């Protein structure tokens, strides 16, 4: 059932969907540099839930580099990279270690907070303006809501994809 080809195709699909979601999100006004809805994170999170940590890192980095190639915006890249550097290890750690005690949306909320912290740190370093840290709580509060949304969507998608697989195999 879980052939290599299928896995490659699905991971490629996740990366492409993440890239497309990111492109759509970039059309909306933003309250802070690099702050978006974060729906792109659904896909590497989903890769973590369905496959594992290596696959999650793969989807996240493919999206990160392709988005950089497409937009040519090194600053958006730096913000996303800083965020991912904090959020990915945390989501992997929480999912592997506390996956039985924590629900998927809760892990996503924690990862979103870590993502925001990483992102704001990058902005502070790039602008040498520590007063920007004052916006972190607001961004984190908004991030918790979108983080929950991301976790909820990813959890639901996992159930659908897995039930789809079960139906297909005899």
């Amino acid at each position, binding site marked *: 059932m879980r052939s290599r080809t299928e896995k490659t195709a699905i991971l490629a699909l996740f990366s492409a969907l993440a890239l497309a979601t990111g492109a759509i999100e970039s059309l909306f006004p*933003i309250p802070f540099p690099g702050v978006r809805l974060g729906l792109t994170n659904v896909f590497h999170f989903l890769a973590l839930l369905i496959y594992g940590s290596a696959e999650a890192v793969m989807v996240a980095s493919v999206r990160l580099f392709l988005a950089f190639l497409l937009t040519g915006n090194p600053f958006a890249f730096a913000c996303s990279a800083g965020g991912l550097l904090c959020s990915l290890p945390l989501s992997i750690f929480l999912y592997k270690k506390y996956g039985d005690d924590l629900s998927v949306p809760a892990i996503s909320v924690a990862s979103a907070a870590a993502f925001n912290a990483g992102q704001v740190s990058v902005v502070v370093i790039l602008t040498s303006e520590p007063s920007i840290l004052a916006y972190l709580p607001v961004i984190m509060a908004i991030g918790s809501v979108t983080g929950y949304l991301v976790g909820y969507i990813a959890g639901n998608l996992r159930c659908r994809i897995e039930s789809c697989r079960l139906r297909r195999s005899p």
Partner: protein
Amino acid sequence: MKQKDKVLYLFLFVIIAAASLASGLLGNGGGSTLEISSDGHVIKSLALSEMPSGTVIVLREGGGMNELLVSGGSVRMISADCPGGDCLKMQPLSSGRGVIVCLPHKLVIKLKGDQAQKPDGVDAVTY
């Protein structure tokens, strides 16, 4: 909702609450002085009330150009010659809320309190 979800949410809530308290102590409240910093240094401090609606502030910092438009007490970025243009998508500054950041040119634009007003400045403007 699983067992430890509440613990995690509570933990996060405490962090956010503590951080907002800390940032409140920093006194980042709004005001009517437009402060423009480049690379961590304040380069311009302008009273909003002294600028008529439609004023365009041209900034040549960090090897690029940005244009700010002041209109009706709010400030927004109207042009930037960077590849991303993220600052153009940021919410306009009004009633002291928020910040506009241009990462490529290391610009931070925000509204600050009036405590640092020049002594010879206008005290109040009435219409």
